[in-house]
């Protein structure tokens, strides 16, 4: 579902993404770990078609993102670090708008169904987004993905700033989507959450994918050590 083929992005002489090769299949959750500037967000922006690659290609649902910028977006949902919605609209109205502009016509009960499925409490459905916490907004973001019936989910630091409970709930939601066959690529700093939800984990540094694991093949402490070693903090590794 998500493929990058020698995907490279340069700004002048600076290479921010260097020949990245990824393959995230249906029902997989791939977590990209790395420090700031490792190239995680650049990867997501390239998959969204927000920026053009210097070389290589990105594919969503077997379609080249560069050649099909609008069509590929029809298959994907994106949740940024700080999901911002329209503050003066309610959760239902926001969901109605974002699903409506994608061409979906949903009834009020459908909309509320998706919000409920995303874990939002019913009493919050008709409240304005301006009163929502970040965790609640992320749930609306998931509801947008559910309503869109997205095949691909791109997440950029989605759990950053969430309290442990909200972060845990978010993880459970990702598992639900995984069960529906959604291919997820998540950029994160959160090793614990990555180990918890991912099927595959990659560690990036300086625009390069340094290591890849199957999540089941590695323990949390091994993951932590690998991460610290890759980042060059060998003295901190156990």
């Amino acid at each position: 579902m998500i493929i990058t083929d020698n995907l490279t992005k340069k700004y002048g002489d600076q290479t921010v993404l260097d020949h990245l090769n990824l393959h995230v299949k249906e029902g997989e959750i791939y977590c990209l770990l790395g420090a700031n500037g490792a190239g995680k967000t650049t990867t997501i922006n390239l998959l969204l078609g927000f920026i053009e690659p210097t070389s290589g290609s990105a594919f969503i649902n077997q379609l080249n993102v560069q050649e099909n910028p609008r069509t590929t977006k029809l298959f994907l949902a994106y949740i940024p670090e700080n999901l911002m919605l329209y503050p003066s609209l309610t959760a239902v109205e926001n969901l109605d708008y974002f699903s409506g502009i994608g061409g979906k016509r949903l009834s009020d009960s459908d909309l509320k169904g998706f919000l409920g499925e995303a874990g939002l409490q019913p009493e919050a459905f008709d409240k304005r987004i301006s009163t929502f916490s970040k965790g609640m907004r992320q749930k609306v973001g998931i509801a947008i993905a559910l309503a869109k019936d997205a095949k691909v989910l791109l997440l950029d630091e989605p759990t950053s700033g969430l309290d442990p409970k909200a972060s845990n709930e978010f993880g459970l939601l990702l598992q639900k989507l995984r069960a529906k066959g959604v291919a997820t690529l998540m950029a994160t700093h959160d090793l614990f959450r990555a180990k918890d939800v991912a099927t595959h984990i990659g560690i990036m540094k300086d625009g390069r994918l340094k290591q890849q694991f199957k999540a089941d093949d590695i323990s949390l402490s091994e993951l932590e050590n690998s991460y610290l070693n890759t980042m060059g903090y060998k003295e901190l590794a156990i």
Partner: protein
Amino acid sequence: MISKTFLKETKELLRDGRVRIAFFIVILLLGLAVWISARQYENVNEQYEAAKMAERTIWENQGEKNPHSAAHYGTYAFKPKYPLSLVDQGVDKYAGTSIFLEAHNRNEAQFSAAADQTGLARFGDLTPDFILLFIIPLLIILLGYNSFTKEREMGTLTLLKSQGISMGKWILGKWTALFTPILIMTAFLFLVAGVLLSGLENFGIFNWSALVVMFLVYVGYYIIFINIVLLISAKTRKSGVSLVISIGVWIIACLAAPKAASNIAEAKHPYPTRQEFTANVLKDKKEGLDGHNPWSKEAKLLQEKVLTEYGVDSLHKLPFNFDGYRMQKSEEHEAEIYFKHYNYLKEQFVQQSHVYRGLAAISPYLPTRFLSMAIAQTDYATHWDFADAAEEYRIATQKFLNDNFAENSEYGNWGYRADADFWKNLPAFDYNPPELDSVLSYNASNLGILGLWLVGSFGLLLFTTKTI
């Protein structure tokens, strides 16, 4: 998607307290302006009807009198107030409402409303055209300056772009959301004006088609402003910057450009001063026939010519009163002089109008203002037309009186008196302003420029916002 965006934007607007307050203020101002103008229109029209009737009564009841005395006694031509002046008062306030018609002289319109007001009138009046031309564009800025910048600032633009939306449809949705309240407000104003005007007694030449054309001109003006404001919002990153640039454009388009156009037009094609104009007319008059001076060279030449033509050796033997004949010839000569000098003024006016139209390319305000005044029949062209009609009537009146004097009395008989009923034979002054068709045809260039602004601003908005 257009309708979804339209509904979303409308909900956001309606839930924004600032927007509700702004709408309330503008609607209140509009209501007040229309009410004030309607009262004013009714009062002026009553005064016009009363003055016209009183003046005609005075004219018809002069009793037995020498026609040339009546010519000097004179009468007034009153400029009617047209129904659409309720919406746009144009130059009416400054141009004068009546022209004194007398022998030998072409007078200018006098008794302007501005002359009767105090210095505070310099601050301007609360009129519908002020709201339509200045305040509603400001409201458009208030509603639309952050239309796109807020999406950037709130972070919703990224989420929107990730949905694979069509930018064109999204922009059209936003455009419709901004246009609809403005359209409703403008339509409401014009509907109220139409109902008020058609409900007034003696509303004269009011017709709905002129009101509809005027409405369309204003709608076009607002569309241009909406396009410009959205374009600025789409191309700037911060709402504050967008607001400042939009207000800057409003200042240039609505305040600076008209004044600059006026200065440039006056500098390129100046009118003579009143002193120069009067001196030039007087000089030409002195060089020609003076009806009251039978001893002048010109009067003697005319006398010789007429005696030869009729084959007589004395003015007493002519079949008409030569005094009356000379008066008429003097009037014709003076009318030619006035025609020449006023024609020069008119030529300057036409040249200035060309400058205005040329400069209309820098501001949509200018063609809109000219079209609005022209359709309301409160522009200078209509005033000129009225002044010309009054002058034609003056010339016809003088001929009517001089012919009676010449045909019904003998040379030297200044004691001749026309019958008391004679004055009724002079038709009353009845001015019909240009029809809507000819107004629009005269203003074809303004319509064209407004059309270009419309198409250009739309094209620019859609073309440059493809990549937000």
